[in-house]
């Protein structure tokens, strides 16, 4: 095998080599366990790096330095955070429901780790190649809502309960545009399997890739999916349920020490898994952006794209103001749902018009018209004046 292919498949070869030491009937189980160990080791490691990246990035956006004491440029901050959360006293309120209070972070972390099983991280590198992988991912994502409710209710705290109700209402509302915008990809690919979806995007015309984000319906679907994904993981600008200036800390007010760290881990890992899913559905998964760059290993491309998505999310968090609860719900039901349904129609029309420039023009025109029209209709009753700026002296 050439050097490029070996580098591309190096983890698969490593897995097979280690499994070769075991008897034949045990080999599939050992291979799967190795995959699980790799996921459980790699993604929390990326989580640690992301916490420091986020704090420093947000700091720079807000014109201050982030953490810079621990290690050079503050890189070892996650180590300090980890030691702190492990050694802090675990306080459980006296009137809290002990069993549910204990189980809530456990359920969240389990559900989030399960979601990583269907992400194709590289060529031939998916933990569970299921026929209905997309459905599995969304089903597991729906289970995280229940853990948030358990956390909020079991703390017997007004703020926790309020934060939990808001979070669950938000997650339920945004689940519909999330699913509808991914159904477009399923419609065009013809399969629910994530591996087949990535393989369908791995062709090149000339130099440019066949990623779905470069088509009109794919671009609209990608934007809708990203916005809904931000809302699903309670990430700014949709972070009203955990708004620090509003609700103390929302549904995890009463958690301290290691359980809080588990919630934090669960939230960030959820962000990674749904960003990875957006990459799989729209951005070509592990495919290279230009055909000449095919020598770079497939798993490297996946992590580069994941890094780009994470940086984008951090940028959004530092820049956009928070949405109010009613604005959030209005946006989901009155704007995103009609756009997602229209996107389905446009993708269907795209499929049945032949190849050529006509379908590009019509699809783009319909989507653009709908976006502008729907936006104007919804903003009709809001009388906003001209923008005024006030600069810091």
């Amino acid at each position, binding site marked *: 095998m050439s050097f490029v292919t070996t580098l591309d498949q190096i983890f698969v070869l490593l897995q097979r080599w280690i499994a070769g030491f075991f008897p034949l009937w045990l080999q599939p189980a050992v291979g799967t366990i190795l995959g699980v160990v790799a996921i459980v080791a790699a993604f929390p490691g990326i989580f640690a790096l992301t916490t420091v990246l986020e704090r420093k990035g947000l700091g720079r956006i807000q014109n201050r330095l982030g953490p810079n004491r621990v290690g050079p440029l503050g890189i070892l901050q996650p180590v300090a955070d980890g030691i702190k959360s492990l050694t802090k006293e675990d306080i459980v309120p006296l009137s809290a429901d002990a069993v*549910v209070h204990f189980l809530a972070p456990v359920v969240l972390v389990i559900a989030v780790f399960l979601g990583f099983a269907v992400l194709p991280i590289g060529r031939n590198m998916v933990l569970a190649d299921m*026929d209905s992988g997309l459905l599995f991912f969304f089903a597991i994502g729906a*289970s995280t*809502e229940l853990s948030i409710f358990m956390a909020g209710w079991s703390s017997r705290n007004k703020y926790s309960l309020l934060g939990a109700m808001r979070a669950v209402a938000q997650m339920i509302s945004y*689940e519909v545009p999330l699913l509808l915008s991914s159904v477009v990809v399923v419609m065009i690919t013809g399969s629910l399997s994530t591996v087949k979806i990535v393989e369908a995007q791995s062709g090149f015309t000339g130099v440019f890739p066949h990623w779905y984000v470069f088509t009109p319906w794919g671009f609209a679907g990608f934007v809708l999916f990203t916005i809904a994904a931000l809302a699903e993981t309670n990430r700014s600008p949709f972070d009203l349920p955990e708004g620090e200036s509003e609700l103390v800390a929302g549904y995890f007010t009463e958690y301290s020490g290691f359980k809080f760290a588990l919630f934090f881990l669960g939230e960030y890992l959820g962000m990674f898994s749904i960003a990875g899913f957006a990459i799989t559905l729209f951005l070509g998964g592990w495919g290279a952006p230009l055909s000449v760059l095919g020598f770079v290993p497939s798993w490297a491309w996946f992590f580069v794209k994941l890094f780009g998505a994470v940086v984008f999310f951090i940028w959004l968090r530092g820049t956009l103001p928070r949405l109010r609860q009613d604005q959030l719900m209005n946006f989901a039901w009155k704007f995103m749902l009609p756009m997602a349904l229209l996107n389905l129609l446009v993708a269907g029309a795209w499929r049945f018009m032949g190849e050529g420039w006509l379908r590009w023009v019509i699809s783009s025109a319909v989507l653009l018209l709908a976006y502008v029209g729907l936006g104007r209709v919804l903003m009709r009753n809001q009388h906003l004046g001209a923008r005024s700026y006030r600069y810091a002296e």
Partner: protein
Amino acid sequence: MISGIGIVFLLTAALTVAGALAAALLRNLVHCALSLTVTFAGLALLYLQLDAQFAGFAQILVYIGAVAILVVFAILLTRGAGVQEYRSYGSRWFGSLVIAAAVFALLTWAVVKSLPAGGAIAQTPSVTVQSIGAALMSGYVLPLEIVAVLLTVALVGAVIVAMPENKAKAIVEKEGGQ
């Protein structure tokens, strides 16, 4: 995937029945709703053991992701999570228990008596999502459309039934006035 009554089936069945029993016996309503969720998860695992992957994942998505949350919200909105002023069990609980036990005995007797003993374990059916999609669009298109209408009607109906009265009157007046 099924190959006789293995340990996996026994554990999953035990989990399901334990969840259902907990939902029957616990006093706190929210605990009942959470053990209902455990029952749903156990049932989804049983579907997966029966090679019905689509049904299993749909069960998790619909029941755990939506129905369980609906039940929990209803409990919170009707203040069932606090102190309950009345007793948990109805006044005719013994008769009801006898009826439930009789139903279980009848069903078990019917199942054990009527099937031929020692049925062969069927081969794994190859059901792909594409075949389900094709079936939904060809043979089952009428039930699909009717279920779509039913869900829309249920959605609108549930919103109207649960709406506060003054808001409903305001909507009726606005519609009638135009």
